[in-house]
């Protein structure tokens, strides 16, 4: 740096001092974007029960089935493909569930995560799990929330 100062003082053209200010600004822009889009875990549309011993499952390796509580007692629970309660992606019966799981397995996914609401009857969860289990080579996981 002393040499650079000396060269600068002499007015020579060998001033290779690189101004890092602009680069740092861009870095901070990137950092801010990534911070804001960073998610520790995917948010679910249903209130899953909390558990202490959950393990993380990567999204790239899993197919998510969201099970919403039935609208009326004794009715069938709504099963949706994905993390949101999207009516377009509702799976009406076990055959559709099985079909979707098969497609996912063909796409390389090996885990089925059943994100069921805490009030969903156990029988409905078993029904969905049973439908998914008909596809070979998968493991079934029950989605839980962080215990606070």
């Amino acid at each position, binding site marked *: 740096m002393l040499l650079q100062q000396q060269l600068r003082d002499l007015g020579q053209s060998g001033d290779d001092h690189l101004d*890092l200010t602009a680069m740092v600004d861009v870095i901070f822009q990137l950092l801010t974007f*990534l*911070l804001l889009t960073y998610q520790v875990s995917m948010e679910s549309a249903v209130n899953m029960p909390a558990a202490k011993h959950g393990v993380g499952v990567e999204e790239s390796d899993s197919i998510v089935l969201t099970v919403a509580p039935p609208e009326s007692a004794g009715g069938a629970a709504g099963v949706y493909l994905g993390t949101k309660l999207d009516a377009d992606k509702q799976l009406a019966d076990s055959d559709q569930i099985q079909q979707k799981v098969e497609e996912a397995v063909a796409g390389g996914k090996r885990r089925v995560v059943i994100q069921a609401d805490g009030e969903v009857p156990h029988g409905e969860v078993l029904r969905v799990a049973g439908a998914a*289990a008909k596809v070979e080579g998968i493991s*079934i996981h*029950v989605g839980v929330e962080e215990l606070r």
Partner: protein
Amino acid sequence: MQNGRGSSLTWRNVWDWEVSRPLDIWDVFHTDRLEAQRGFTADDVRAAISRGELRQDDLARPSGSSEGWKRIAEIPALMAAAARSDRKPPASDLQPPPRDIPTAVLLDDLDEAQSFAPANPTRVPITNQDRSELRELTEEMARENASPKPRKRPAEPPPAGAKPAEAARPPGGGTSSRPAPVAAAEAVAVEDWDDENEDPLTEDAEAAGFTLAPRGGKEKEEDLDLAAMADVAFQLIMFFIVTAASVFFKSMEIPTPNPDKEKSAEQAVARTVEDLSNENILVEIDKLGQVQVDHKPVAPENMIPELRKARDETGRLTMLIMADTATAHKHVVAAYDAANEIGLTIKVGKLMAEE
């Protein structure tokens, strides 16, 4: 107050007692010619004033002292007799100093200044402080003279008029705290406050030249090395890029239900519960969420200790969960969690509806 030395003192001049030199020798500074002269007695000053060679706005100070220069009008010792004398009105033909007169004070000739020196002037060596002070004064006056703004130098205002002019002294000309700036002598001081005519381009040269930048020498640039900060920022970015690529679902693995068993589920369940209970810790959950461990009702918060006790007593390492189909999912998840806490393998059984 009178002292034995024959010169009149006022209370303000008490500090002169500390100085071991005659009190009636004065240094005089001509503000129009920017010239200092020394060795004036008070009588000499008064005589010069009456002759018109000295003005009341010129500066004076006790000779050889380090006090600041004061206007002669503010020194009663010099004005005492002058007030009584028949003062001539200020000469109307007093011209502004011609531009070709060098504005620098002849400091080097100060010791030899003899213009108005009395016969036996008292020589007191000029200190460097004197020189620097006078130099500053002359530089200020030179700047004011060189100012492009035309400044009228009107006739000498009468003493009564000096005070309003002094009060209206523009602050721009007084950035330093000298006792008697030259601008006080000008009657146009009031006009300087005319905002309509104020032209920032022609403002006081000194005010225009005022800057907060450090004077003397090239300004040193302080370089802040940002390389370390950039490295840390890159580290953070890479961390977030890597972790953002993988979003996690928190879940617990449960055994895959075997679909084949559903066909004979009723028989299978009816047949093997007792057998299974030999190898598995039986956990039954009814539709209300009440838990029974090995047919013993257990409060949910005691489930883990009970399971641990059952495991330790019997050595069974598997938990069989038999939950009603109407049981809420959350109670079953609690049982899963308890099994993971203790380290029991989970088996999920299915209660068929009683027919």
